[in-house]
């Protein structure tokens, strides 16, 4: 018995070993430098990384692995030390991250803007306006359906701040027209299309979103719709294994002339999505 079971076990071990070995063939690539960047799903979905990361890799040979999550989760990933760099768009949370000792320094990288997306029927009569606060008030007054990401993301924080400026707190009152889905930007747009609802989206995801159906931009251009991105190196003092040299190289490239140019050159349908605004002092 022992010999038969042993040989069966050996056969399986060989299979497992073989599989592991073929996956190890990927290792030589990874043994070349790589870093993990925790960023947001909206940034990932915009396609920005697909454009700029190959440029960075060509220059430095460093492989950037992006784990795209909600802002809250991305910062948590940085807190746990599971990422080397954090790139999100929630300034207050980013500054708290650094203040609490998890990050070295926060730097501006770029901004994009939010737009209020609405259904063709436009029950709140918000279309064509450039005052986001007035539009939100109208949505509330007309009780038009509104989809919120409800996931502690940067977009979600921005949305809540705008409601606050409008003097409303639907996330607390939870009226029936306010639908929190707890998911990312793509899912929110899908839901809004299906429900004929309003939704606050970042322009990047909106432009590259494929299921627009009868949704369209209702309000844009309001300065309060600016969405600032910040990049932070996870503090190696807190997590010694952080690849700080490669991580810093990425940050330096991103805020330096080349990275900023790369960001500027990313276009969808001829439209620029992100506006680099790193300050020269870094």
């Amino acid at each position: 018995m022992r010999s038969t079971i042993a040989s069966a076990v050996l056969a399986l071990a060989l299979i497992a070993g073989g599989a592991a070995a073929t996956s190890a063939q990927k290792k030589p690539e990874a043994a070349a430098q790589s870093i993990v960047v925790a960023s947001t799903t909206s940034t990932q979905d915009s396609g920005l990384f697909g454009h700029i990361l190959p440029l960075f890799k060509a220059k430095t040979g460093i492989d950037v692995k992006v784990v795209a999550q909600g802002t809250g989760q991305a910062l948590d990933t940085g807190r746990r030390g599971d990422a080397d760099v954090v790139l999100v768009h929630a300034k207050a949370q980013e500054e708290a991250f650094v203040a609490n000792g998890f990050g070295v320094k926060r730097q501006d990288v770029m901004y994009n803007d939010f737009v209020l997306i609405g259904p063709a029927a436009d029950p709140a009569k918000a279309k064509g306006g450039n005052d986001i606060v007035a539009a939100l008030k109208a949505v509330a007054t007309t009780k038009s359906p509104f989809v919120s990401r409800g996931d502690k993301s940067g977009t979600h924080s921005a949305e809540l701040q705008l409601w606050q400026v409008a003097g409303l707190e639907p996330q607390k009152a939870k009226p029936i027209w306010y639908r929190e889905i707890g998911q990312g930007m793509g899912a929110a747009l899908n839901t809004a299309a299906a429900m004929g609802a309003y939704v606050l989206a970042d322009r990047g995801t909106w432009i590259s979103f494929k299921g627009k159906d009868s949704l369209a931009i209702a309000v844009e251009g309001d300065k309060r719709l600016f969405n600032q991105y910040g990049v932070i190196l996870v503090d190696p003092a807190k997590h010694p294994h952080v690849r700080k040299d490669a991580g810093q190289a990425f940050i330096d490239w991103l805020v330096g002339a080349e990275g900023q140019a790369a960001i500027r050159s990313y276009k969808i349908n001829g439209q620029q999505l992100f506006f680099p605004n790193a300050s020269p002092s870094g």
Partner: protein
Amino acid sequence: MPHPVFRKDPPVSGAGALELIVRGDPALLAIVRLSLLVTVSATALASLIGLPAGALLALARFPGRTALVVAINGLMGLPPVVVGLAVFLLLSRSGPLGSLGLLFTPTAMVLAQALLITPIIVALTRQTIEALWEEYSEELSAMGVSRGSAVATLLWDLRFPLVTILLAGFGRAAAEVGAVIMVGGNIDGFTRVMTTSIALETSKGNLDLAIGLGLVLIGLVLAVNALAWGVRQWAGAHAG
């Protein structure tokens, strides 16, 4: 990792999805290859642990055995996302096994899937072996066969049912998304597999591509099930 063609020039009709498959789009193939690698490795690992454990559980008698059998049967229904969360917490740098640096790697995905399907393999193996052992043990001991040889005989005669158990484990692992997305991070070109790609492309509104991947995945699951059926038929005809 070459910039995937489908991201910039998405298919505009459902037929586009099939076109990607037929054309053998390299990015699509890379995702399929990674999916197979992860799930095959996970199945191999789970079998290495699960087959002997199931055999042991079938044949040994010890206090608490019944409770263990019930518990393992229950673990078959582990929600993948819960397994993913557990493995995530284990492998995170802030977790107990953080120093291994395995989070967001294909290895983590293999571990999570293996953890998910091991109870299935153990439970089904136990059931299969126990049933046949009840029949075989007395007859074999009357033939003067030692207990060890009897077990080996049993396992050899069960080789086809055991293969179908492995296929069942494979099918379950191939279909799940909750575990691998948590511990893999769905990193483009590194930890992105069929199921996580489907979730991602759907959330981006790329339904055509998501459907294309879905067709490949369904095809795979059907093929595995057909194989299992074929094995059962062959075994039935040749061994009874």
